[in-house]
């Protein structure tokens, strides 16, 4: 089952957990959809209601920035590690 690493700033939205596991695999979109069903507040911090990953949120699948590997269609294997990180932004 893929594992999601939750940044400290979003752990309240993940029930206080730093690691989550999901049943969904195959694509990043499927993983985020399951997060949306189980932790909706976490998911809406990551994606807007159009389903797009927010501009200043980066999602890494096995260490690779998903924006460079197919976006939400990036392949996710059963043992994948998915890391959500706020990008370098803000003032």
């Amino acid at each position, binding site marked *: 089952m893929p594992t999601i690493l939750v940044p400290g700033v979003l752990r309240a939205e993940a029930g206080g957990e730093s690691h989550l596991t999901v049943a969904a695999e195959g694509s990043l979109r499927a993983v985020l959809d399951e997060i949306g069903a189980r932790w*909706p507040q976490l998911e809406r911090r990551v994606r807007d*209601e159009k389903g797009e990953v*927010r501009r200043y949120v980066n999602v890494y699948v096995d260490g690779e920035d998903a924006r460079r590997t197919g976006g939400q269609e990036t392949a996710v294997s059963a043992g994948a590690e998915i890391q959500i990180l706020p990008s370098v*932004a803000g003032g």
Partner: protein
Amino acid sequence: MTVHLAIGTQKGLFLATSTDDRRSWEISPAHHAGLGIYSVAFDTRGPTVRVLAGFESSHFGPSVAVTDDLGQSWQEPEKAPLAFSAGEEAAVERVWQLVPAGPEQPGVVYAGTQPSALWRSADGGLTFELIRGLWDHPHRPEWGAGFGGQAIHTILPHPADPSRLLVAMSTGGVYRTTDGGATWAPANRGIKAAHQPDPWPEFGQCVHKVARDAADPDHYYAQNHHGVYRTTDGGDSWQSIANTLPADFGFPIVAHPARGGTLWNFPLVADSQRQPVDLRCRVFRSTDAGDTWEPQQSGLPQDPYYPVVLRDAMCTDNADPAGVYFGSRAGEVYASRDEGETWSTVAAHLPDVLCVRAVAV
């Protein structure tokens, strides 16, 4: 009398309280620290004072939270309180305005967002539904965006008729409904659009803020992107009231909470020179519905003053005499307990002040 003053800033919400007739203030640490608070409202219709905050994380997007215990605990629903439905190809970027309706509509709260959309909550601001009549308006594709984005920033429910509502947006101008939001019509005749080839369009004006007169609900005042206006016919037509102001540019305009014809604004030199006229920190008050204006500066900084006061960063309370408040992008907040005659500093060194609201209970 306790007066609560909510100060929304670029990096959190500060709640100030005064129990000595606004002579001194106790200010909370930041709520929602680090988040931009673009809208805040007090709802006094229930047994306790509810504070609503529209916040935005530059990373994680916008939301709305409410507290019924002055910030000891906040409620935010699991699912987004405002969200376009699938297929709209739009996403809420920022909540610019939160306005409880009148006491005859308990639980009803309106929200204005970026992109320009109006929302209605029936549960006190926990969840909202899109008002489709305005979202589906045929003018919408032609509404533009000012520097701050395209948003509905003013919502004025009619005090006696829940079916009537006036909103203003930048850019787009003023729109009204008389049927509870099903249909909307522009109401900008007489307001100049200096940024357009046709300076007198039916819509498209960059109205910065509108305030309703306390005595006559068909009298409104508008601070425009150049131009200050009054209507005495509910928005059918607008006339300039900028003649005795030192400049016609600015963002906020607020009306006295109880006395008709009294209003305040904070003029800036011009859109190309966004600083107070003569670099003097001065609020301007009119007591004759804008025919004449007088500066008010006693107690305000006397040094050259550059900061801007944003459109929602000025307000009144509901006490008598009325309190007037404003905050600047330099993180200062000033209050007057005598309708602008004298001012004192409530807070300094805060992040940029985006909005202020006050209520006496």
